[in-house]
C-alpha cells in the first residue's frame, strides 16, 4: 500500500478515476437538468454558469448528458470486462492445469476470436446479436475473453511447475483447491491490471458503437451519441464534441495511470541483494 502512494502517477490515476466515478455516480442527483428532455429555447448555447458545458442541438445540458452517458458507458464496460475476466481467467486456468483435448480446442477458438481487430469483431457481434446495451456488454465480454484466457493460461503454466503446487498435489489437495489457492493468487496481479485497461477500452468500444448508431439509441445519452451529435454541429457549437471528447480522455487517462500504478506496485520490486 505504501508503495502505491509513493508512485506519483499511480496516485494521480487513482485520484482522477476516483473523481470521475464520484461525478458519474453522484453528479446526476446534483445537477438540476434532465438528460433527455428537450428545451427548444436553449439550443446550442455556449458554456455558461447554468450550463457549464453548454447545450446540444436539442437544448439539453451537455454536462448532465455526459454524466448520464458515462454511467452507461462505465456500467456496460465494467460488466463486459468483468464477465470476460471471470470466464476467461477460469478457462485459462483450467486449460493450463488440466490440459488435454478440450483445452487445446478451447485455446484455438480463443485464438480465432483474438485474431479479429476488436472493433470489427464488435460490429459483427452487434449485427448478429442486435442493438442495445446488454449486447454491447456481451460483445465487450466476447472481445476480451481470449485475452484473459491466454494471459491466465500462460501464467498458470509457469506457476503449476512450482514446488509448492507439487507439494499441494502430494498432500492430496483437490484440483479446485489447487487452482484457487495455489495458482490463482499468484497470477492475479497482471489480471487486475488487464481489467483496468480493459475497462478503458470497453468505454472506447461502446462510445464507438453508439457513435455509429449501433449502441445506445437516442434520446438516451451515451458518450458516443453525444459525440455523434457534437460532430454534426461542430461548426456552430464546437464545445459539445470537444468537451465530451475531453471528458472521455480524462476518464481513460485516469484508468490507464491507475492500471500502470497497480502493475508497478504488484511487480516484485528489485531489492538490493547482498
Amino acid at each position: 500500500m505504501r508503495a502505491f502512494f509513493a508512485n506519483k502517477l499511480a496516485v494521480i490515476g487513482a485520484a482522477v478515476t476516483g473523481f470521475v466515478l464520484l461525478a458519474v455516480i453522484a453528479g446526476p442527483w446534483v445537477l438540476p437538468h434532465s438528460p433527455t428532455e428537450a428545451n427548444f429555447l436553449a439550443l446550442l448555447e455556449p458554456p455558461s454558469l447554468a450550463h457549464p458545458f453548454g447545450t446540444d442541438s436539442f437544448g439539453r445540458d451537455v454536462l448532465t448528458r455526459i454524466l448520464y452517458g458515462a454511467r452507461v458507458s462505465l456500467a456496460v464496460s465494467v460488466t463486459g470486462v468483468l464477465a470476460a475476466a471471470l470466464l476467461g481467467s477460469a478457462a485459462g486456468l483450467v486449460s493450463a492445469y488440466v490440459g488435454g483435448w478440450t483445452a487445446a480446442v478451447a485455446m484455438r477458438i480463443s485464438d480465432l476470436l483474438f485474431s479479429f481487430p476488436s472493433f470489427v469483431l464488435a460490429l459483427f457481434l452487434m449485427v448478429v446479436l442486435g442493438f442495445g446495451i446488454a449486447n454491447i456488454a456481451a460483445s465487450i465480454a466476447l472481445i476480451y475473453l481470449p485475452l484473459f484466457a491466454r494471459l491466465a493460461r500462460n501464467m498458470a503454466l509457469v506457476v503449476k511447475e512450482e514446488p509448492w503446487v507439487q507439494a499441494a498435489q502430494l498432500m492430496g489437495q483437490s484440483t479446485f483447491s489447487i487452482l484457487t489457492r495455489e495458482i490463482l493468487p499468484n497470477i492475479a496481479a497482471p489480471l487486475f491490471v488487464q481489467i483496468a485497461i480493459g475497462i478503458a477500452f470497453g468505454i472506447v468500444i461502446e462510445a464507438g458503437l453508439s457513435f455509429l448508431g449501433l449502441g445506445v439509441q437516442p434520446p438516451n445519452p451515451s458518450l458516443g451519441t453525444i459525440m455523434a451529435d457534437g460532430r454534426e454541429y461542430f461548426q456552430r457549437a464546437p464545445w459539445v464534441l470537444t468537451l465530451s471528447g475531453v471528458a472521455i480522455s480524462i476518464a481513460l487517462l485516469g484508468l490507464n495511470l491507475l492500471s500502470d500504478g497497480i502493475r508497478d506496485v504488484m511487480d516484485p520490486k528489485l531489492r538490493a541483494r547482498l
Partner: protein
Amino acid sequence: MISESRGAAASDATMQVRELVLDFGAPQRFRNAHPLRALDSVSLDIAQGEILGLVGESGSGKTTLGKTILGAYKPTRGRILYAGRDLATLPPGSWGLLRRDLQMIFQDPLSSFNPRFTIESSLALPLRLHGICPKGSVSGEVAALLKRVGLGPEHASRYPHELSGGQLQRVAVARAISVKPRIIVADEPVSKLDVSVRAQILNLLKRMNRETGVSLVFITHDLGVARFLCDRIAVMYFGRIVEIGATDQVFADPRHPYTLSLLRARSAVPDAVITDADEVPIAIADPAQACNYAPRCARRIATCTQNRPALTTQDKGHSSACFVPIEAGTAERTEGIAS
C-alpha cells in the same frame, strides 16, 4: 536377488518397488527420438523406520525415483507395492488416505511454500484437510509442530520470504510430519543450505526418524551426509541401481567401480577418479542390453557392452550390478570424507 532390509524379510518391507521403468515423453511420430528412460528397471525395498539413501549425480534418476514412488509421475512399467495396493497403477482419484502416508521435503525451501500465505496457513491446511485434529485446536497444533522442529510461535504469522532457508526447511519438516506419514521422501533437503545450518536440519531429520519411526528416503549427491544419516544406501547411475547395501558396508567395501570413483572423488587421493576425462563414444549395439557405466569404466570387458549386469549379492544385504566387481577388501579405507 533383492537385498534384504535391516533385519526383516523382504515381504515385511513397508514398500516394495519392483522393476520400475519410467520413460519421459512418448515416442514422437515424426522423429525417431527415443523417449528418455529416467528409471530403468529399478527394484528396492523400504523397511519401516529405516533411512534409505539414494545417492548419485545429476541425471542418475534419484529424484525421479523419489517422486515416482510418491505418485508424482506415472511409471511406464513396474510395480510399487504399498499397503496391499499397487501405486503404479492406482488412478489419481483413488489415492485418498494414502496421501497422508507418503510425504515429501523439497530441495529449495523457499519455493516449496505458496508465497501468498502465512506459515500458519500453510501448516493448518494439511491438518484440516486430513482431519488430524479437531477444528478448534488447529492453531495449537501448529504451534506445537513449530516447537517440535525448533521454531517459536512467532514464526506462524510470517510469510515464507521472511524466514531464512534453514527456518523454512524446518517448517517443511513440520508440514511433512504433521499428517503422521509412514514414508518421507527428502529430495536433497540440505543442498541449498549453508554449512552451519545443514547440521541443524540433518539432526532434526534423524530425530524425527528416531522419535516417530517414519521411514526416510534421503536423496543426495553428498556422500558424507549420506554416510552420517542413512542406514542403507542405493547408488544410482543413469536410471539404474548399481550398488545397494548397508551404509557401512558400501563405504568400507564398495564393489562397483562407479561407487569407488564417487568415494575417491571426495578424498584427497590424487588421480583418484577411475574414469576417462571426457566420454569418447564407444559403439554399443543395444544400450538396453549393456552396462550403462561401460563407456566411462576403466575395467570394461567385452561382456559389459553386450549384456546388462543384474544386481548380484556380494555379501549379506549388499549387492552390486557389475561383471567385474571390485574384489572384497581391495578398496582403500575411505577416510576424510568431509561434508
